[in-house]
């Protein structure tokens, strides 16, 4: 197996995996989508009743949106996650009570008129849990409206709910294999014009495949070609794999964690089979 990294930024990764098969890459894809854990707000407590500020003016704890909408919006805010220092709340020594090793608390205290952004979430405790993407609008408050919220984030996986999904837009495609029978080709250019990805080009009175990595196997070129000289097929052993993250984990972390989970699974399998052999 050979891996070429086409792109690797904190929130995006694109790799070419050769000498592989779709099942393997799909296993990886499914793992990073639904099994890689991350932190997300799971519990939101709203203050009910009037909220006073320092000056003694009373605000109503109400907003244009219903509490459940606000809670849902907060749950989708990407919360920075340190996979090494957190464990699932249900498996924590606190017995699910919530403690610094399984939860992160945030507070949100805003008085209208204003727009509440994700950056207004104040982590209780370490500053490193401050939300990085601080301009996600949550709600707009009018005069005399205020919000006082305590939110708890905990670890979870995308399988439970997509708020715990770290990897987004995960997909892959087979590498394009385009064959042109130059002997019969009349260089009509119709295939070049119809190709949406600029894969084909004309060079030296010949149609050449300039960017096979861009081909989506859409077959537009073969359909338009009257002489039938182009053949497009995908190569299932060479796969371009890409995904993005929501920012709570980096792309690299996601990939490594995903591989680790797979590894652990196979490890358990091997142990079990090992036991059988004994």
């Amino acid at each position, binding site marked *: 197996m050979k891996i070429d990294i086409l792109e690797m930024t904190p929130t995006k990764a694109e790799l070419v995996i050769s000498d592989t098969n*779709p*099942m393997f*890459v*799909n*296993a990886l*894809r*499914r793992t990073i*989508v*639904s099994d890689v854990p991350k932190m997300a707000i799971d519990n939101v407590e*709203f203050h*009910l009743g009037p909220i006073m500020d320092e000056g003694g003016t009373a605000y109503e704890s109400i907003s*244009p949106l*219903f*509490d*459940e*909408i606000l809670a*849902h919006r907060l749950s*989708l805010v990407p919360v920075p996650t340190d996979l090494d220092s957190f464990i699932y709340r249900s498996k924590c020594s606190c017995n699910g009570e919530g403690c610094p090793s399984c939860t992160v608390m945030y507070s949100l205290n805003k008085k209208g008129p204003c727009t509440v952004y994700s950056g207004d979430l104040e982590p209780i405790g370490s500053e490193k849990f401050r939300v990085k993407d601080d301009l996600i609008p949550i709600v707009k408050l009018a005069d005399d409206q205020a919000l006082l919220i305590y939110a708890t984030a905990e670890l979870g996986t*995308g*399988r439970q*709910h*997509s*708020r715990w*999904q770290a990897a*987004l*837009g*995960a*997909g*892959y*495609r*087979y590498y394009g294999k385009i064959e042109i029978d130059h002997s019969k080709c009349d260089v009509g250019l119709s295939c070049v014009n*119809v190709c*949406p*990805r600029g894969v084909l080009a004309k060079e030296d009175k010949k149609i050449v495949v300039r960017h096979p990595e861009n081909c*989506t*196997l*859409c*077959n*537009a070129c073969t359909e338009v070609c009257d002489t039938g000289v182009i053949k497009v097929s*995908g190569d*299932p052993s060479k796969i*371009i794999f*890409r*995904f*993005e993250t929501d920012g709570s984990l980096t792309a690299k972390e996601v990939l490594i964690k995903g591989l680790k989970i797979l590894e652990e699974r196979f490890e358990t399998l091997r142990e079990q089979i090992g036991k059988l052999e004994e």
Partner: protein
Amino acid sequence: MRELVETYFRERSVVNHHTASYNDFLPTIDHPNSRMQTIVDNVRASPDEADRGIIRLDPDRTEGKIIEIRIGRRRDEKTGRVDPSARPTISVGRPVIKEANGATHDLYPMEARLRNLNYSAPIHLEFTIVEDGIEREPERVHIGDLPVMIQSKKCNLHKDNIDMDREPTDEDVREFHVKMGEDLCDPGGYFIIGGTERALISLEDLAPNRVMVEMNERYGTSLHVAKVFSQKEGYRALTLMEKKKDGILVVSVPAASGQIPLIVLMKSLGMESDEEIYKSIVSDPQMANIVYANIEECQNKKLYPPNGIYTTEDAILFLERKFATGQAKEYRAKKVESIIDRSLLPHLGDTSDARMKKSIFLGRVARAILELELGKRKEDDKDHYANKRLKLAGDLMEDLYRVAFTNLIKDLKYQLERGYTRKKGMRISSAIRPDLLTHRLLHAFATGNWVGGRAGVSQLLDRTSNMSALSHLRRVTSPLTRSQPHFEARDLHPTQWGRLCPNETPEGQNCGLVKNCALIIDVSEGTDDKEVIWLLRDLGVKEVSEQQTTETRVYVNGDLIGLHDKPKELVEEIRQRRRSGLLSHEVNIRFDNNMNEIIINCDEGRLRRPLLVVRHGKTLMTRRHIEDMRSHKAKWSDLIREGVVEWIDAEEEEDSYIAVFAHETPQKCEHCGKFLSTLDVEWRNPGEEGKTVLECKSCGGTMQIESQLKDNHTHLEIDPMVILGVCSGMVPYPEHNSSPRVTMGAGMAKQSLGLSSSNYRIRPDTRSHVMHYPQRSLTTTKTMEFVNFMHRPAGQNFVVAIMSYQGYNMEDAIVMNKSSVERGLGRSTFMRTYRAEERRYPGGQEDHFEIPSPDVRGARADLSYSNLGEDGLIGPETRVEGGDVLIGKTSPPRFLEEEADFLTPQKRRETSVTVRPGESGWVDSVMLTESENGSRLVKVKVRDQRIPELGDKFASRHGQKGVVGLLVHQEDMPFTGDGLIPDLIINPHAIPSRMTVAHVLEMVGGKVGSMEGRFMDGTAFSGETEEAIRDALIRNGFKHNGNEVMYDGVTGRKIEAEIFIGVIYYQKLHHMVSGKLHVRSRGPVQILTRQPTEGRSRQGGLRFGEMERDCLIGHGAAMVIKDRLLDESDGTLQYVCGNSSCGHIAILDRRGTLRCPVCGNNSKIYQVQTSYAFKLLLDELLSLGVAMRLQLEDLK
């Protein structure tokens, strides 16, 4: 031309027809000749009172004094006409509320909605008492309250009624509306009665006062009939004339049984001379013989003893004998007078002065019948829109108010006469009963039962979404009964083009009877026909002396006014005057070449549509107009005044030749090669000679093409998209769809959830929905701009793939991405408001909001009240389930007198308000206020989050509806090479048989829109072209046909078939599983039959119907049938007397012995199982005196 449409909507709102009509009804300072004032001017205190607008008291009851009370405006003594410039006597104030403690203050719609009030304003009328000829100072008295239309001139939200030290700007108005809790996109045009919003539905009716001829097939022979729906001041009378087999023309008059020979009737009306009669009928020598025969018939001594009918006296005598035989002479005369003056053609007048006019009119009706028989005239088309009139809110109010006001005045007269004493004098204010008027008006609004016996005129405004509210306000219903077929009436008539939406109509029994207005319409308010008649006289229209003529007959509002010899010139002249503003734009004229008639209409209720005027192949609209419209300098009314655009009714349209497009749009730009739609080119030279010059908007190059406008064109369509209504206008590319699908799409837009109003948090609607993340559609239409769809959307843009998925999307089911749902796709909240009032009962008892104490009858366990506060009300943000108490309330005992025990006081009853069974949610708000009569009123709003689940209904805008069949995790969904996962998977079978090409087109359009970050234009007839979209797809890296290669999310392998995938607007419809889910094991039964109750709301049983029964019979499962139909339904055990001569139901008496109460037998009594319904049948027959005996036998 969209500039025109934009200009129109800058001036008028989508519900302008209602507000304008209501404003015409209202008396305001700038509108002295209002319909309300006219009603007052023409009111009659009693039916036989000659003078109008005056109450004349009976001198016998006023001790001989002659007392007149003038309520209408002063009349000219000679002509008897009301001086139109006289000061109005009636006035309407602004909406106010009178509290129980006597204080009054301005009322705003939101307060009315919240407090269950009527949004109504006081009506004041000026009474001038004239006692023995001495006129007293006028007295201004409150006579009742008038429901006020929101956003009408009297509404407190109207710009003119906002108190400010300066002229309020639009910004001020908006600010004010927000302050008053209003939604800025609310169109108004409805009323608030008892806190609920009520819309008046426009009625479509046959045009009154026209002669309609038709052929009736009866018993194999065709019968020629003419009908006239004569209408005056709300009174409708159908006069019918038919030709009998023997050639005799007879007339049926309402209130007179039987038929009257035409000639007799004409003679009785004063047309004595036979020659005159002949002339007023015969238009063609061929008719002469029939008319002769008719005249001769009258002279038949045998039929009309003693010596035939020659003179008016003869005729009247005949009528007297026919309709009032054996009565006193005086009564007979009166009866005939009432028939020929009141019942016969009342629109021509109801005094004896009008008799000659009626006679001439009858002659004309006879002529029409004879012409029909001779084939010189065609049957009138009842479904032609020229023969239809609309009754809008103002007209309906007029009908209702006239009746209520006449009642009030009658009552006032009675009260004054009864209470008159010379000493005390007379006080109008103490004799009048304003409640009489108010209640009459409110009752009609609250029940929808209008005067004239029409039901469902006022309806609860549909607030499901903004579109449903708008569409409801633009609805037009036909009075035809929905149970009969009425095929022709349901069909789309060509004259509805541009007036009524061809697609928006309900499916099923109301199909084609309930219609909706097209986007731009105007309903005429009516102008005075005298002006037109004077003008016609000036232009040389001659009086009619006889019907036989070659000259053109000129009709105004169905009345034959005169003859003219140069019809073409006359019509041209009148049109020119109208276009130059010398004549009201409401006047429409048509020259009917076939019948050689000129038809002029200026009455009210004509549905008209705007058209650009074209002369000599050029529009009157020029480049300057377009530029002025763009810079907002030109107003719609200016264009009408200039004669660039005019309103055309269905009659005048018959005389027009209308071009749909001014030019063709070339497929491709000659210069830059872009695929062009109508939008991409600019018409450089409208109104100019020569070829049409088009400019490509993207490159600026110009092209010259042939103009489509020819010399014989009279008009050009404003923009073809305006033929659709507001709901069909929402469908993108409707011209690519099969028509029923557009109809279904329009119907479903009205059921879609979205942001129905911006004040949803304070509105106290009984049920309402709000979508959490509504989006504007990526593929838009121009119509959306004018109906505020951009600000009140109802739907979301879904990524949709068309493929099958494990069979879970068979039969229109849809497969949804669970992860998308978890991220907020298709979420909505359902809100229900519960209300309770501390009612007061006669006897000083009242309800109380409190936690019922345990000794209250029917009190629940303490736990049920644990959520309530001390005041008996629940707190906000409490979680509640079905059956939980929201408002603790007790009521006084139901029957006070029925006291069982004199020592203990009777217990109060528990009447708490609980959450509906099967519903749950959080308490959103609790509102405590005071109702109009001073008692406390509570409204509790409960909200429930609705996340899409299995069985919820979704639909695109093309009538493609389906329910969720499976929610799939993201990783199991198919994905594209870019990692894109569809939100929704629909089945390929949904497309071909339905022919919803626009659905496919919208998907690729949405794909381009989301890639390029712009809104696509899918407006009917002018949207972006398919070619341009294909081009754009390639530009954005997609295959030109929208297909993509996808990979199976489960196996990871490439899916061999290419998958069509795109972005399309989907709507969540309000049919959700959580509102329908229902099971029952045991539950309530009906008291009468003891069978399980019906319906979910009553926790009813599921019906085991006939077909289910047949199925079990087929299986031979007899015991199952018995179980379902007897044991689990209403099976009971009865004791039956086994005495073979008795067989009555026996009883188990108190001592525990079995006994037959009829024969006294107490040994042979058997227990029998029957259904309770059977026992009920026995008892019912018994009550009729039928002895029901059951003959028992042993089982064999």
